[in-house]
C-alpha cells in the first residue's frame, strides 16, 4: 500500500530542502512547545498548509497569551496539534477553522477512549505504549482515520522543572539545554531537552514502526529529532536509516500492575 501522508516535526531550516511530496510540516512553536531546541514564531511560518505542534501543558497565563496569538492565526496554518485540552477549548471559543489533532500518545491506548477523544478532534496520535496486536484492531474500528507513529523519538517524560539547569548548577557544569543520559541498571539512554517551560526526556532510540500498514491512517507521524536531512529523506523513501532504532512495545506488552510477592506478572 502506498504511503500518502506524513506529519513531520520540523527541527531545522534544512527541512526546506526536502523535495518529497505528501509531507505535512509540523512546527514546534516558541513559548508553546517543549522538548525542542529550535522553535518557530507563528508569524514567521510561511509554509503552505502548516501545522502547529503545541505540546505544552499550559498554565492560565500562558494559555491566555496563546489565545491572543491564535486570534491572529495566519491563513496558511491548517491544523493544530495539542496535548492540553485547554488549547481545544480556546480554539472552540474563538471559533477558528483549523484541523485539530490530540497528540498525547500515552493516553490513546484503547478504542473506546479513542472514540471519545474523536468526538472532540479530527484525529489523534495512536499510543506508543501499545502492541501491534492492540494497534491493528484499534485501527480497524476507529471511526476516523488516525495518526500512527512511524519513525520517532518517543517523549518518555515531561517535567515542568528545569532539570538540566538544576543539575548543571548543582555540579557547576557548563550549561547545556540538551544532554544524553544513561540509566545504569537498565542501560537505557535518554536525551533530555530543556527550555523555559520544562524538560522533556526522549528515549534515545527511534521507534521504527514503518511496517505498520493500514487503510485507516490519516498521517504517519515522524519526529526526526537530531537526524540529518539525508536520513529524513531515507525515512520518507522507506530506505535504511543510519540511526539507532527499536520496536518500542510493538511486540512486547508492558506489565500491568505488579504483585511483589510473585515478581513481575502479566495481567
Amino acid at each position, binding site marked *: 500500500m502506498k504511503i500518502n501522508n506524513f506529519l513531520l516535526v520540523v527541527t531545522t531550516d534544512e527541512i526546506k530542502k526536502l523535495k518529497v511530496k505528501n509531507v505535512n510540516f509540523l512546527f514546534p512553536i516558541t513559548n508553546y512547545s517543549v522538548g525542542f531546541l529550535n522553535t518557530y514564531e507563528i508569524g514567521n511560518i510561511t509554509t503552505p498548509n502548516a501545522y502547529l505542534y503545541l505540546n505544552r*501543558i*499550559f*498554565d*492560565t*497565563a500562558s*494559555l491566555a497569551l496563546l489565545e491572543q496569538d491564535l486570534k491572529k492565526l495566519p491563513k496558511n496554518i491548517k491544523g493544530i496539534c495539542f496535548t*492540553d*485540552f*485547554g488549547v481545544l*477549548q*480556546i480554539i472552540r*471559543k474563538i471559533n477558528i477553522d483549523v484541523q485539530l489533532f490530540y497528540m498525547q500518545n*500515552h*493516553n490513546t*491506548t*484503547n*478504542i*473506546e*477512549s479513542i472514540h*471519545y477523544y474523536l468526538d472532540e478532534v479530527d484525529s489523534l496520535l495512536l499510543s506508543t*505504549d*501499545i502492541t501491534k496486536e492492540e494497534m491493528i*484492531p*484499534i485501527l480497524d474500528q476507529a471511526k476516523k482515520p488516525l495518526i500512527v507513529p512511524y519513525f520517532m523519538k518517543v*517523549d*518518555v*517524560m*515531561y*517535567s*515542568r*522543572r*528545569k*532539570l538540566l539547569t*538544576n*543539575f548543571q*548548577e*548543582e*555540579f557547576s*557544569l557548563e550549561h547545556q539545554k540538551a*544532554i*544524553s*543520559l*544513561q*540509566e*545504569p*541498571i*537498565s542501560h*537505557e539512554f*535518554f536525551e533530555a531537552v530543556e527550555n523555559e517551560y*520544562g524538560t522533556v*526526556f526522549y*528515549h534515545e532510540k527511534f521507534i521504527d514502526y514503518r511496517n505498520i500498514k493500514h487503510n485507516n491512517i490519516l498521517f504517519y507521524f515522524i519526529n526526526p529529532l537530531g537526524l540529518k536531512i539525508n536520513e529524513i529523506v531515507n525515512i520518507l523513501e522507506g530506505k535504511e536509516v543510519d540511526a539507532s532504532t527499536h520496536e518500542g512495545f510493538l511486540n512486547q506488552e*508492558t*506489565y*500491568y*500492575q*505488579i*504483585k511483589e510477592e510473585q515478581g*513481575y506478572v502479566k*495481567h
Partner: protein
Amino acid sequence: MSNIELLAPAGDLEKLKIAYLYGADAVYCSLKQLGLRANANNFSWEELKEATIFAHHLKKKIYVTVNIIFHEKERKLVEQQLLKLDEIGIDAIIASDLLVIRKCQELHVSYDVHVSTQASILNGEAGLFYKKYGVTRLVLAREANIEDIKKIKEQTNLELECFIHGAMCTSFSGRCVLSNYCTKRDANRGGCAQICRWTFAYPKTEQVFSMTPKDLNLIEYIDQMIQAGVNSFKIEGRMRGIYYVATVVLAYRRMIDKIIKKDLNPKEIEYYLQVLNRCANRESAPQFIEHLPGRKEQYFLGRQEVSNQDFLGIVLDYDEQTHFVTLEQRNYFKVGDEVQFFGPNHETISHQITEIINEENEKISIANHPGMIVKFKIHFKLEKYDMMRIKLFDKHTFL
C-alpha cells in the same frame, strides 16, 4: 468554610480507619486492579463494601481511584466495575481516562466523578473541558501555583482538590513512561518503578545524579489555598504506614480547624511543620505553590530516604481503674525514655517510661521485639489507637 475537606490516603482498611479516626473527612483508596498504586495492599470488593459502610456510619466520604490508563484488555472491565461501585455506594471516583469519565455520564452513576491529577490540569479551560462531561471536582496538577488555583476556580466554579503533602513526581503526572522503558512496568497502569528517583549517569562528565524532588509540604499555605478556592486538601501516601497517616492527618486537621475558626497562632505553624518532619523520610518543600522549584527543591545524589524509628507503639487498651496502658510495640524503647502520646481526642502528652511489663507479667527494661505487647502505668486517660512516639520537643516551646 463548611465545604473544606481533609482527604487522606488509605492503602488498606486499617489505614482507612486510622485516617478517619485522626480527622480525615474523606479518604481515597483503590481496588486491587484499577488504581495507580498497585504496590499498596488496596481493597477487595468486600473490603470496599465494609469501608463504605464504615465511612458513612461516621458521616464521612470515600473515594475510589479508577485512574489507570486503560488498554484494550482492561477496558472491557470498566462498565461492569463502574456499576458495581455504584451498588456499593461510594461517594466518588477519581479518574483520568476519558473512557471512565464518559462512561460514568452515560451510565448515570449516582456517585461523583473527580478528574485525577493524572490529567495535569493547570488552567481553567482544561477544567471546563471536563466539566461538560459532568465532573464535579478537579484534582489539580501539583505544578499549579496560587494564581493558577484562583483562576481555575473563577473559570470553572468546580470543587478543587490539591495535594498538600507527600511525595512528588518529577514529571507532570500522567506524562511519564520512564518505568515502561527501564523496567517494562507500566507507569500509567499501576506499575511505576519510580525511575526518576534512580541515579542517572551523564557520560560526558561521568557525573551521576538523580532528579528526585523533595516531598511536598504546604502546611504554611493552607489559609492562602482556602482563600484561593481549594475545597479539598489531599495527603499523598497510600503506601505509607499508619503512623504517617495518623501524624499527618492530625497535624493538618488541627491546622485547618484553627484556620476556619480564625484562631491560629502563627507560631503553631512551625510546631506542626516540625511534627510533620518527624514522620517524613525525606526533606520537604512547598514546591510549585509560589515559584518554579529550583535545585534546592531536589536531591541529586541518589535516594535520600532515612528510616524513621519515631513510632514506638500503638495503644490497644487503657484501664481507667489501674491506669495501665497496653501497647503494641512498633520500635525499640526502654525504661527511662522520654516519650509522647498523641491521639485525635487530646493534646500531645509527654511521659517518661519508668517500667515496662511484658505479657508474662514480668518487668523488663527494653521493648525490643516488633509487635510485642507490653503495658505500663500512665496517669492520663488514653484511648485505643492513640500512638506513642519518641519525644523530641514540646508544643509549648514553639508558642
